[in-house]
């Protein structure tokens, strides 16, 4: 298990999470929104955080894990600062998004679901994000890029890297 509770500000985050849980009327039914909150606070849902939620709500850890592993929105792995969501929905697929995915995968050196070792990028495949007119579509965090081709991949990556450089 990762040691998420020893990270900086972990106590404050847990306090926020506890307060959120307290606000729920029927705690058991609120599991999904509580998990959303936990992921928003900590960035991902490692097993120790799932266990924390399960004990707080007094529901089996297996049930919590069942929900977390069911929904692709929930991540059990630490994610990079930027999540590159490559849409693998039907329209994007027909428009050749698979090649785009390969290109990202090659250039970042990670498989879909993986994160780069510098903690900057996580590559993910997602199902339709509802922007089929722009297919093939890539979403980086909440920004949507349409009509993406393999030639755009290097530029997108370097733009975000450059942005990171200027931030720090």
């Amino acid at each position, binding site marked *: 298990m990762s040691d998420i509770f020893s990270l900086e500000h972990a106590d404050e985050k847990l306090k926020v999470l506890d307060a959120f849980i307290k606000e729920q009327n029927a705690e058991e039914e609120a599991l999904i929104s509580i998990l959303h909150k936990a992921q928003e606070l900590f960035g991902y849902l490692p097993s120790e955080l799932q266990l924390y939620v399960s*004990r707080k709500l007094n*529901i089996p850890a*297996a*049930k*919590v*894990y*069942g929900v977390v*592993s069911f*929904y692709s929105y929930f991540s059990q792995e630490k994610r990079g600062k930027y999540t590159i969501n490559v849409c693998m929905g039907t329209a994007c697929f027909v428009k050749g998004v698979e090649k785009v995915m390969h290109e990202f995968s090659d250039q970042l050196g990670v498989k879909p679901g993986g994160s780069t070792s510098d903690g900057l990028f996580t590559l993910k495949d997602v199902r339709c994000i509802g922007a089929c007119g722009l297919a093939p579509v890539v979403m980086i965090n909440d920004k949507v890029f349409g009509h993406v081709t393999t030639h755009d991949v290097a530029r997108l990556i370097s733009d975000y890297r450059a942005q990171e450089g200027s931030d720090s």
Partner: protein
Amino acid sequence: MKMLSIRINDIPLQVPEGTTILDAAKAVNVKIPTLCHMNLKDFGIVNQSASCRVCVVEVEGRAPLAPACSELCTDGMVIRTDNLRAISARRTAVELLLSNHPFDCLLCPKNLECELQALAQELGIREIRYAGEKMDHPKDTSSYALVKDPNKCVMCRRCETMCNTVQTCGILSAVNRGFNVFVGPAFNLDMVDTSCTFCGQCVAVCPTAALTEVNNTDKVWDHLADPKKHVVVQVAPAVRVAIGEEFGMDPGTITTGKLVSALRALHFDAIFDTDFGADLTIMEEASELIHRIQNGGVLPMLTSCCPAWVKFFEHQFPDMLDIPSTCKSPQIMLGAIIKTYYAEKMGLKPEDIVVVSVMPCLAKKAEAARPELTKDDNNNVDIVITTRELALMLKEAGVNFAGLPESQFDHLLGESTGASVIFGTTGGVIEAAVRTAYDWITGETLEKVDFQQLRGLEGIRSATVKVGDMNLRIGIAHGLGNARKLLEDIRDGISQFDAIEIMACPGGCIGGGGQPYHHGDMDIIKKRQAAIYQEDRGKVLRKSHDNPYIKQLYDEYLGKPNSHKAHELLHTHYIPKEKI
């Protein structure tokens, strides 16, 4: 109650509102095949996931087929179970299940016991039209008790119902989604790293071999073949009223004498009775109870014979570890006595003795491996096999069980009383304890030993038994969900008892996870229970403290119940465990 008029395959019938199509069909002798469905009415256990689609039938006036197990009848409903459309749909459902199922039936531990295999046969499936990817999950062989093979899972969810709803352990849940879905514990942990009690009720209801017991029969064969080993076997009470079913005998047939002959045919060096261990347990447990009552000790006292229950309270109620009795279970007590008293009497070294237990239970396998239940690095019990595994060994050896003569357990640790026989059923341990406690507290001899108020199959029972001047308040629960309720009420001060008996499995050990599969037929459990009480009635001695060999054991070796020596050999302690 409102009655509904319906037709099934042109047969008109009336059913009460709330009846499923499946139950209505049963009433007119129409068989609809099922797979995921499970309804153990007497225990209030229903699995109605309707996930397998094997029971679909045609309902006039609606386009999709209806799952008979969960669809309720409506007035005027016209149902067909026997036309080509319904039959084809069922076959397709089974073919799809098979398309993602290993084909190693001949080598499978559930061969001829598998409900999926039986369905394929009943539906006449000879080829599978769907070739596709197969699941490839690793097997979980981490525990001493059970094996989980997710590749054989058909997602019927019966195990989840047992684990979550009935036992409230919450170990098993569906994880992942789509093709990758399977049933498993949190975070893909190994079963041994969870708070699984190894009660084995998931194994008892699994239709396939996705959940099976750890098979120890090879180990037993190896020891039997080793001339340097003195192999002693002991048999739990519930085994004798169930093993006959494996050999075509009626449920509830008492086979004690044949069972002993069968073990002799396998050439065990000594054949002892766990019932002797049960009598010994009563000596210690009744003494402990009286001591607690008379000295203001912690009450209620909880029984500790059931290892699934023990593990359950260690994980779920780690703050209440002072209330269970410190007594080891009968199998472990007998193992300890075999490795010490018996070894000394026979001039054997404990390390040359192998103790094999035949148990109706999977948790007994895990119990025997608990590190604190050893004596000088010798396991008290070396190998545990289930009722089913013993039947398998007898079949391998070609023993014609039904045709065997009756014979007696071996002397020294083979004699037992009626009190110990009833350990096999819910209510039995506490009744046995009361029979002895009564005589000891009052100094009188109890004449009427049958305590009807403690018997039955209700999940939680309570009764007050008058013992001299005092009223002994007794609670009984079987099934861990019921045990949890009882324990929570005690913790919250809602219930007050002096003594409580808990058994993890429905009906107690007679419904244990290692017994012949009852396939959801509750009448089988009831017949086993009736047989247990019949065996008790047939015994000359009905109270544990009247067992002359128990007296001899105390006179020659242990001294008094709860003596220093008795504590060293027959008592244990509990360890708080994490809940996960």
